[in-house]
């Protein structure tokens, strides 16, 4: 009797191990390069690219007033809980800062005054080599192979915040509390998030899918260009050809896809 019970427990234990091992084996077999098993539905008018990129012409955005409608457009359509007062719990997808905060490795003691006083827009860089994707233990954040956007699956994220430690740009926010009471106007077209998950700019993947440009690009009245980095005739490539541009912390090798004309 005792022996058979022990035997049963042994077999049950080994079986449980076997069940647990299956997804692991799958992962090693797949090499880990696959994204999660879901996709953003795309319409016939969907805009496509090999790697979406953004060029921000900061010369056309000299004041905080000029940036305000851009940030607001994003906040509004993405249900950003802007009414959170505690700075520690802030959710930011796109926000403004000073030159020396944006370009920490490109500051001079004696900087062009116009640049020093100009506000700069910060957002997720949708790196070609994103450290946050490398860090994520569940593929909840992943680089979409079709167009290079770094996306988040809010339903898979376990809230370990490894991606926040990995991001060298401070682009990620964590829902330290339920965001719903702090959303000023609820946009029913875009999902709200729950407490305990990380979120960030998604390059408006949901708008690209229906043929629209990102909200910030639309609101910028021509100051922000958006296009395919690997299409030499795209607007962003034309701008990169004609203007001297800089990127944030490019020495780290993450290859940010957001360029700034200063």
């Amino acid at each position, binding site marked *: 009797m005792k022996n058979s019970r022990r035997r049963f427990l042994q077999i049950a234990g080994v079986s449980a191990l076997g069940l647990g091992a299956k997804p692991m084996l799958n*992962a090693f077999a797949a090499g880990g390069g696959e994204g999660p098993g879901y996709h953003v539905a795309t319409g016939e008018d969907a805009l496509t690219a090999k790697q979406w990129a953004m060029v921000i012409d900061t010369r056309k955005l000299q004041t905080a007033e000029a940036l305000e409608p851009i940030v607001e457009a994003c906040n509004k359509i993405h249900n950003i809980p802007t009414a959170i007062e505690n700075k520690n*719990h802030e959710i930011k997808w796109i926000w403004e800062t000073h030159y*020396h905060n944006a370009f920490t490795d490109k500051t001079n003691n004696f900087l062009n005054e116009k640049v020093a006083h100009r506000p700069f827009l910060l957002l997720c860089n949708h790196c070609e080599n994103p450290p946050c994707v490398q860090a994520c233990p569940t593929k909840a954040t992943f680089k979409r192979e079709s167009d290079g956007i770094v996306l988040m699956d809010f339903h898979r994220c376990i809230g370990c915040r490894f991606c926040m430690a990995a991001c060298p740009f401070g682009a990620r926010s964590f829902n330290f509390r339920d965001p719903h009471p702090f959303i000023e106007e609820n946009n029913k077209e875009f999902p709200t998030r729950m407490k305990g998950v990380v979120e960030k700019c998604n390059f408006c993947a949901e708008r690209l899918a229906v043929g629209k440009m990102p909200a910030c690009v639309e609101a910028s009245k021509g100051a922000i260009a958006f296009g395919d980095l690997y299409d030499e005739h795209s607007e962003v490539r034309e701008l990169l050809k004609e203007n001297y541009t800089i990127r944030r912390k490019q020495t780290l090798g993450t290859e940010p896809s957001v360029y700034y004309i200063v």
Partner: protein
Amino acid sequence: MLELAVKGNKWYWGWLVVLLGVIGAGFGLYLMQLKFGLGITGMSRDVSWGFYIANFTYLVGVAAGGVMVVLPYYLHDYKAYGKITILGEFLAIAAIVMCLLFIMVDLGQPMRALNVLLYPTTNSVLFYDAIVLNGYLFLNLVIGWNVLEAERNGVHYQRWLKPLIYISIPWAVSIHTVTAFLYCGLPGRHFWLTAILAPRFLASAFAAGPALLILLCLFIRRFTNFDPGKEQIQSLAKTVAYAITINVFFLLCEVFVAFYSQIPGHTTHLNYLFVGLHGHGALVPWMWGSMILMATGIVLTVTPATRKNETSLMIACIVIIMGTWIDKGLGMISGGFVPNPMHEVNEYAPTMPEIGITLGVYAVGALVLTVLYKMAVGVKEEVHG
């Protein structure tokens, strides 16, 4: 052997009741955190890991420290340690249980924790950390339990345990190496971006783990009929002396590289920790306190007279545990996040609920350790007593 854990005097049961009380309080606070979110902690958008992950990191070290008795006994056939290897293994079990709990309480969506296994991601260090930590827990449970049972029955432990014992030695090194890799592989976090992080973690682990083990041995000798042995304690003390010295040496290597090269990315975090940055210096007294504690620990353990005197050795172990905890627990995690990637300074301090939950986790560890040690000491009393 479990029956040994349910026989005890009123002090034993009183202690367990106290621990259960602390665990209950901690669990209540955790329910609050589950309901409200991690916003009840002091963590922020900038300092996105805090007290939980800091204590996790420290305890991985304590767990790895157990190998400092296992290795000399099994690899060098240092017979004296045969008496206390079980104490090292059981300490490792309690420490790993706490590590896993700290990870759980730190998750924003703990009910999704199994996603790590459901969607295994081989490029994430966290995936490997989950494997090595659970593996180490499993190894120590199997080895500790079976070796103790064999000792009780007066027979040699099973032959198939031998390979597991050998595997457990590099495995102990791996748990703290992989834990260091969580931090030191991240671009843009210059404080952690150093190849010496894993060695530094190991050095502090091999000081803190054995130091705690010495205190536990002294306690066991005082309050039970089992004497872990003078020679054993003295050998552990020498390990502590070397490890704490190497730990401080590694730290000084970091300081040299940062301040001789004068590269701001490297100096700024050390400046924040030791002199403050832009008027923010909450950790400055703690860090200097840690330096004084570790220096005192070095003097007391390296000097033969104070090492051989068990009272001063006990003090040395306490200051080393405190010093390394501040260095690794408080400074290492906060220091890496302040200033943030935009060079803004946003400081971190744990909140009361956060400290309460942390104490709850420590109480679970103490409970596991108490029960395991009760069994181990019970067997030793039977066999040697």
